[in-house]
């Protein structure tokens, strides 16, 4: 059932976010070309307008992505649509998984579109000359060779980033689910729950980081994590911590949706 739930969640996200992310890339490309033309003609009005449009679109994308991630969960599971969603033959765990995976995927797609728009704009505007680009490409093998000694650490770093994103999304959903247990002022209760969870989260993270530092001192005699041998266990520990945190928030969300469901 998870793949079927994902299908409709992804569809719903794509309807709202895909045109926006597409517009960012299109405006970035148009902006790059406009700056290139303005270098020749001297007129920079169009390029200026497009730069403003690009900045506005970037802000809009961030705000709209966050809002869509929040509303998709609330409206679809805890609003009136919840009567349909919870009538489907799927477990509460599958519903949560679908919402978390789809939100994480769209945050990643949004970030990728944002980051990609910069080189697109720079390349098309001609601000990076072909010679410079070729130089950068020539330096790549050396850069990759230097990074290769950290491959495992970098892989764990990527896993850590993904787990951190998932933990953050599940924390937000746990806060919304806790807030929805109230009959009134659900939005305020959700914000309160998020602040409370964040405070607990901070204390736990400080405790975990402190413990990690002590273990590192015991093992290496230093507080610094400098070499690849020290970096990998550090990232592995951070990943386990994030996974545990996400698991706890997941359980809180599950408890609210399965045991204390309070639909509008």
């Amino acid at each position: 059932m998870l793949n079927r739930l994902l299908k409709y969640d992804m569809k719903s996200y794509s309807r709202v976010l895909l045109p926006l992310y597409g517009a960012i890339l299109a405006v970035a490309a148009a902006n790059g070309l406009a700056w290139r033309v303005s270098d020749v003609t001297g007129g920079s009005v169009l390029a200026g307008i497009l730069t403003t449009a690009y900045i506005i679109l970037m802000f809009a994308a961030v705000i709209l992505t966050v809002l869509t991630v929040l509303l998709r969960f609330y409206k679809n599971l805890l609003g009136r649509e919840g009567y349909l969603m919870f009538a489907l033959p799927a477990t509460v765990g599958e519903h949560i998984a679908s919402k978390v995976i789809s939100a994480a995927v769209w945050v990643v797609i949004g970030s990728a579109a944002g980051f990609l728009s910069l080189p697109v704009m720079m390349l098309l505007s001609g601000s990076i000359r072909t010679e410079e680009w070729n130089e950068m490409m020539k330096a790549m093998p050396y850069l990759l060779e230097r990074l290769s000694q950290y491959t495992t650490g970098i892989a764990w770093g990527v896993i850590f980033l993904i787990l951190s994103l998932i933990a953050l999304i599940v924390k937000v959903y746990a806060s919304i689910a806790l807030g929805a247990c109230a009959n009134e002022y659900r939005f305020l209760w959700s914000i309160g729950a998020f602040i409370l969870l964040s405070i607990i989260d901070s204390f736990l993270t400080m405790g975990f980081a402190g413990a990690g530092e002590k273990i590192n001192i015991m093992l290496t005699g230093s507080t610094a994590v400098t070499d690849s041998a020290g970096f990998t266990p550090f990232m592995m520990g951070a990943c386990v911590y994030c996974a545990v945190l996400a698991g706890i928030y997941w359980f809180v969300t599950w408890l609210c949706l399965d045991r204390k469901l309070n639909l509008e």
Partner: protein
Amino acid sequence: MNLIVCKDLSKTYGKTTALDHITLSLESGRIVGLVGPNGSGKTTLIKLIEHLLVPSSGEILVEGMAPGKDTKRLVSYLPDRDFLPEDMKLETLLDMYVDFFDDFNRAKAEEMIKSLGIQKSQRLKKMSKGTREKVQLILTMSRDAHIYLLDEPIAGVDPATRDYILNTIVGNYNENALVLISTHLIADVEKVLDEVVFLKEGQVYLHRNADDLRTEKGMSIDSYFREVFKC
């Protein structure tokens, strides 16, 4: 065959008791009216069967199973409110029902939709409230389910729509299924009922065959309801 069994079932919300130690068995092949005034526990009982709520104590079994993913395959549920995603097109909604419910008869649903002149390409938010209610009913009754849970299907609709709803229910349900209709508008529904369950202050006041009750009391179920729940 008993499709729904409640054993000493209770549900409380804080200090308020919505259902108070209910024991009830409902069989297949029957249309059962779950009647009672507002706040008598009708919607709570339906939500417990659909696993939208969990019991505070006691047990509820749907075809011998605790409500959950497996029982939702067998139960077709019509809530007492507008529940369809407004941004969705009707044809996407039909796809969704096909994807999730093996017993959904798309051809039957499309035929009913066509007979009402509704466009499949239309988004739900573009439809009138009455049309959306009809679409909800069509989707619910186009499943070949074992149990139909219909929560206040005729509340707040005009008399013509009321007739359409009742005709759709009677004309489309699986005859081996159990149809549980929650309502306080008994006069309109009583002609289709085989059995009636009166809920009063969270307890089962009576559970009887509809004809037997009419004969025994010498009045319609609606009149008897008014007598029992007189303010």
